[in-house]
């Protein structure tokens, strides 16, 4: 987020800078594209092409906003093109609507959500191994606590404790990112 605010006009794109941008944004960009395309391989390809283009035209590409904004706009546009090219327009009708307008609030919300998920992914990665594995089995693989307990040969109680620990830890790490949630909630409640 702080990058978006720090507007760098006509920044000089060195190879190192592009690699840095890749490390910072590639995963989020790909996951973001995946939310529209529901096809991870297509999403990867789109984002890769954006970087390839940046690479090949680094002499001439003029980034008027932040590099991050440039990347996300590029990916968003590429997604839109892909969706348009796909034969089954009807399925993606909603997505086209989100993507079409340049300042789509919905598309920005989706981006925010993707960023949150990436932050979570990183935070989960930092959890103690056992805690991390249990949490993932529960949240990603969708196993019940009993199933996890059986699988790992531990008590259900331990599984529950570990998940609670994970949640608490994540709340501490991720909490600051969610500062505005209450306001959003209240605003929604007022409607």
């Amino acid at each position, binding site marked *: 987020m702080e990058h978006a605010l720090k507007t760098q006009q006509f920044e000089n794109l060195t190879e190192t800078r592009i690699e840095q941008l*890749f490390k910072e944004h*590639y995963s989020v960009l790909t996951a973001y594209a995946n939310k529209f395309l529901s096809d991870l391989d297509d999403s*990867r390809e789109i984002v*890769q092409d954006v970087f390839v283009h940046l690479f*090949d035209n680094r002499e001439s590409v003029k980034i008027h906003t932040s590099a991050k904004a440039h990347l996300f706009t590029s990916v968003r546009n590429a997604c839109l093109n892909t969706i348009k090219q796909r034969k089954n327009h009807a399925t993606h009708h909603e997505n086209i609507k989100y993507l079409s307008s340049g300042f789509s609030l919905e598309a920005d919300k989706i981006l925010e959500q993707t960023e949150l998920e990436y932050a*979570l992914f990183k935070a989960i990665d930092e959890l103690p191994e056992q805690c991390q594995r249990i949490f993932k089995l529960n949240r990603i693989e969708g196993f019940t606590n009993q199933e996890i307990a059986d699988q790992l040969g531990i008590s259900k109680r331990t599984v529950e404790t570990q998940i609670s620990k994970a949640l608490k830890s994540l709340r501490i790490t*991720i909490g600051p990112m969610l500062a505005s*949630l209450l306001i959003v909630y209240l605003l929604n409640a007022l409607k």
Partner: protein
Amino acid sequence: MKQNNQHIDEQLLKAILEETSSDQDKQEFQKWIQADSANKDTFLKMQKIWKSSKGIEVFQKIDEAADWKIIKAKSGKTVQLKKVNLFMQYAATVLVLLSLSLVYLYQTTPGFGKYAEYKSLQTKNQIVLADGTEVFLNKESKIVYPKYFNSKVRNVEMEGEAYFQVKPDPTKPFIIKSGNAIIEVLGTSFNVKNEMDGTTIVSVNSGKVSLKNQKTQEIVYLTKGEKGIIQKRKVSESKNEELNFNSWKTNVLTFKDTPIAKVFSDLENYYGVKITNRSAKLDTLTYTNSFSNAPINKVIDELELVLKVHITKKGNHLSITDDKN
């Protein structure tokens, strides 16, 4: 459980999130959440984390290192391709320019491609062209001719003086551009001479020659024993009274009742000398004789004997005076 507890049991919250909570838990949760807005905030955050954590699966499937390699590979290719393209563009441009200049040089520059050039300086030369035509080139003359003639026409260019013995070929006219003249023949022999003043004289020895003024496109046809003269815009034809028009080539000088002044002028031309006549008695005489391959001293001796004069030779200068004897 404490009512305004900031440390509500995480297990309970989790049960709420998992929707596995008992009624008792739900009551307790309601109490807790209403006790403090901070509690509500905590729960909302947890809920958000809980829901969002389902969406992290995609990140596990993204291999950044591998995809970075793909990007490097892809971009490397396009960059290389672009460089090659740029190089190819330059190469193509250079090649086209080179080809054009080669074609231009080939078409125009004698000695380089299609055309050969021959320049004679102080010697006379004989050249046989590709079609078998013989060209005798006088001193200080030049001819430009194709190494091979094309199928329709035989074109040459000439400066100075030359005698052409054109190989007969009715299907391919032989065309000479010289000075202001365009001479077209089928097969014949004739002499072409550019004078210093720009006049071109064509003297025909055999066959038929067409002589065209390049400026006016006026044409005269010349046959054996005739000569045509192009002088600026005029073309004239006359009987060729000139006995020695091609003596430079035949090395034969012929005089037949020739006025002495004309004899001297022909000798001047042939031997490249300057003759000063200081003998008044010679002016009215004519002279008849023939020299073949004669050195100038032999001619001098002959003249002294017949004309009864004295000739002194200083370099290229002949001085003729009355014989003292």
